[in-house]
């Protein structure tokens, strides 16, 4: 019962967040500063999602050869930077992960 309550609450909260600005009447304009700020949202949020996955091992900062996810991530970043391809970046990252895991 409480689980269904949680699902219902999550549904309302999540849809509300997504719909918030999209459903505002068109004549309501965003302030210029907010528009400028929003330019940085995608890069900031997406990076905030993957950075801990590379730099933390079991919740602890790890910058070492033993951290194969960091090494594989660096390979993926280089591929993404140079070629800007989604599929190639993911494949390269997975191959690199297995390679570094085998090597170290």
């Amino acid at each position, binding site marked *: 019962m409480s689980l269904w309550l949680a699902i219902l609450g999550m549904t309302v909260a999540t849809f509300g967040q997504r*719909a918030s600005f999209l*459903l505002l009447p068109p004549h309501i304009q965003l302030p210029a500063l907010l528009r400028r700020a929003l330019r940085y949202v995608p890069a900031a*949020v997406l990076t905030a999602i993957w950075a801990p996955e590379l730099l933390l091992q079991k919740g602890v900062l790890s910058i070492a050869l033993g951290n194969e996810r960091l090494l594989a991530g660096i390979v993926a970043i280089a591929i993404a930077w140079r070629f800007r*391809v989604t599929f190639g970046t993911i494949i390269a990252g997975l191959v690199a992960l297995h390679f570094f895991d085998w090597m170290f």
Partner: protein
Amino acid sequence: MQLARTEFKAGLRASLPLFIAIGPFGLVTGVAMAAGGIPPLEAMAMSILVYADAAMLAATQMIAADSPALVVVAAAFIVNLRLFMYSASIRPYFAGESLWRRVLVSYALVDNPYALFIQRFGAHPEAPGKFEFFIGLAIPIWFCWQVTLGIGLLVGNQLPAAWKLDFAAPLAFIAMSIPLLRDKPMVAAAVSAGATAVLAHGLPLRSGMALAAVVGILVGLLSERIWSVKSA
């Protein structure tokens, strides 16, 4: 009409490379939800109604720990703060669309379609066919997610962890975020947000990500003054 079809197909095509990231992540999320003790019916209902991966994973952890419903909802809200920002960011592109179209876009607004959409239309908010492209992108991603999550729920924890397919998710975020770094303030925003997310990792209720977003935005805005880049 012709353009609408072309853009819809372009969206479909753009979604395909993401299957390799979303598929494994859907599987892993399904497995995690099953392991967290959420029954298949409730898990599937949550996946279809809420349709937000990170929030569902966070909720699973909290439900497994017997948290009250209100705490679970609050955690999902915090994890999903970025959706609020996505909504604001994507709004100008759909301002002219009908209400039901904007409701549809709202429902389908998750990380991957958002990032790919911005990649394509970011510099061209006036370009036609945006809704068709977005829906073409969103439909295959929705099905891929629901089907793989369902399979994950069924196979439980029998997936070979040796495949390391869970790493495909962060790799997808790398693939989507790196091409956005077109000027110095953008790089500064991303680096500072990433560093904040790492340092604030231990904060309760996954609030580290929201904090990282705020820091990234502020650093980006301040860097504009230093490098005097014109904003788009």
